[in-house]
């Protein structure tokens, strides 16, 4: 699983620009699924067919990562930008970025008298050119860039940019690999969504198209096990979290019961998550059409939306197991 994670987290995929990662994922799964399509927005919808008598289950992980879009190129070739998704501005200063065509650059700031003055409007990207003309050979207004970082393997724990939500993508790929030779009763729709970070957009159209009986998002959640942490009772290594509530969804009691009972039945460690902020694709899925039973398997993650997000590999492996068992038990 580490190999897939490494490949995915180092890929480039800001919202709306998921094509490179999409190709990678399709390559990993195409021979293991019965159908695969890419919709208008760019979501991958891959189906493992069941017996024909079962229900439809949608699993969704988002391909996109937070990124930046170039809004202006000045005469000296410096780039100004707008955030795509929940960027934490203080994480950007000194960061390295890359564009779809491989162009790389660094972010820095206009002179700051104090760190309190850090503001996204004072930041710019330097791609190592000296003029607007030179810059425009590499980058255009409207191009998007993502953070450039290698994975850091700390043994059980992994550090990378965009574990939100490449870990979810890796979990879905792992599920596909594990079940492709098993006969399942239910049709399982593995959905790799776009534009989650800018408003759960891909999941909305994918859920409409799939019209599932159950929708399960697989995404990261914020861990509360660091010094002076956010007040959430979530710990790395204590198992995937079963989401009960965030800003986008209150988990349906039927789904909550299914998820908890499945975890207990198969002795999969789990935690319960009540998140006072944030949302996932499940928020969009559960309000599609006349309403869809939905839940979310969350992977505890430290330093979410920073260039160094951290997860515990055991949690991801247990999430694979929990996902497969939920697909069987529903």
């Amino acid at each position, binding site marked *: 699983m580490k190999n897939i994670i490494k490949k995915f987290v180092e890929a480039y995929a800001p919202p709306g620009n998921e094509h490179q990662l999409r190709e990678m994922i399709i390559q990993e799964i195409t021979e293991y699924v019965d159908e695969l399509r890419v919709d208008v927005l760019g979501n991958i919808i891959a189906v493992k067919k069941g017996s024909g008598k079962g229900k439809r289950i949608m699993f969704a992980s988002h391909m996109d990562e937070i990124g930046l*879009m170039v*809004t202006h190129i000045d005469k000296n070739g410096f780039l100004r930008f*707008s955030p795509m998704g929940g960027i934490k501005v203080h994480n950007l200063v000194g960061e390295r970025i890359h564009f779809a065509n491989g162009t790389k650059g660094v972010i820095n700031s206009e002179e700051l008298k104090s760190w309190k003055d850090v503001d996204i409007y004072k930041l710019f990207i330097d791609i190592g050119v000296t003029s607007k003309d030179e810059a425009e050979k590499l980058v255009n207004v409207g191009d998007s860039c993502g953070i450039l970082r290698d994975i850091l393997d700390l043994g059980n724990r992994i550090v990378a940019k965009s574990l939100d939500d490449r870990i979810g993508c890796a979990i879905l790929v792992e599920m596909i690999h594990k079940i492709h030779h098993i006969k399942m009763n239910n049709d399982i729709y593995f959905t790799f969504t776009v534009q989650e970070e800018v408003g759960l957009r891909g999941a909305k*159209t994918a859920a409409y198209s799939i019209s599932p009986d159950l929708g399960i998002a697989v995404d990261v959640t914020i861990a509360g096990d660091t010094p002076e942490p956010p007040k959430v009772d979530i710990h790395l290594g204590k198992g995937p979290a079963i989401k009960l509530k965030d800003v986008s969804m209150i988990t349906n009691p039927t789904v909550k019961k299914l998820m908890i009972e499945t975890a207990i039945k198969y002795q999969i460690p789990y935690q319960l998550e009540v998140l006072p902020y944030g949302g996932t694709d499940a928020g969009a899925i559960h309000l599609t059409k006349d309403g869809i039973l939905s839940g979310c398997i969350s992977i505890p993650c430290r330093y979410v939306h920073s260039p160094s997000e951290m997860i515990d590999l055991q949690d991801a492996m247990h999430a694979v197991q929990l996902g497969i068992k939920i697909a069987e038990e529903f």
Partner: protein
Amino acid sequence: MLLKRLTEANGVSGNESEIRKIIIDEITPYVDNIKIDVIGNIIASKNSHLSGAKLMIAAHMDEVGLMIVSIENNGLLKFRAVGGIDNRVLVSKHVVIGENKINGIIGAKAIHLQKRNERTIPLAMEQLYIDIGAKTKEEAEKNIKIGDYVAFVSEYLEMGDDYAKGKAFDDRVGCAVLIEILKHQFDMPIYAVFTVQEEIGLRGATVAAYTVNPDLALIIEGTTASDVIGTDSKYYVTQLGKGPAISIMDRGMIANPIFNKYITNIANNYNIPLQIREGATGGNDAGKIHLHKEGIITGVISIPVRYIHSTNSVINLKDYQNLIVLTKLFVEEVSKTKGLKI
């Protein structure tokens, strides 16, 4: 003059009946069918019998304005904004209230009575009121009810060689472009939608997309131009006279790169100036339409507007003409290829 007729009409969000009547009057000779839906959108179609990809072109009819929330004992009226309004532009403006268009002026405490520090702070909406020349609450109530809409009064005037000033260019320019497009024949099903309540949350477009269920959508909008004193060039967003603008991203949508390439190719082939909207704030009907059902390929072309959302906005008329030409060429091209093929 179409722009004069459209911008001098009123249509504050949720109260679009006046502008709706004018638009229906303008388009009736040129379309096969006109439907007014429950929320008030105009859905006008041409060639709906033809098979193949359906195109929806949309512009919003509504404009920002105010609403009366209370009538004070002294006959002055308190109000709230409908849509995004810059408080600083309100004081001393001429407005009309309600169906009978009662004249009023937005007033505030005179400068002589303001304390020194008050003069340096823009007047908040709470400090403003509308004066309709009534002496008492009872007198005001003869003509005004709570909930009455308030629209700005602003004459459409042309200035210089290529400029025009007026209100509601956002998005009566879009409405005018749609009207001009409908005068031509195209070989594909076209649904021109004049939406309501865009300024308060893209509401009309949400239900219109459901009715039309298009394969392809084009939104014609008015967008910010801040190419003025006090703004660094990196924050201009758009500039007057440099042609229509295509969006890269806003709060509601990340632009479809295929769509933008398609439009850019047309502009290049026909020597139409085109600029990129260098900003990511704001939003428009595309935000709702592109997420309809399984997803709709959607694009936005805008006219740059200085002093947008104020009583006196300024546009460049060449930009307007170029926007009409570009939109017409776009519809011709997609008619030929039965959809967006590149």
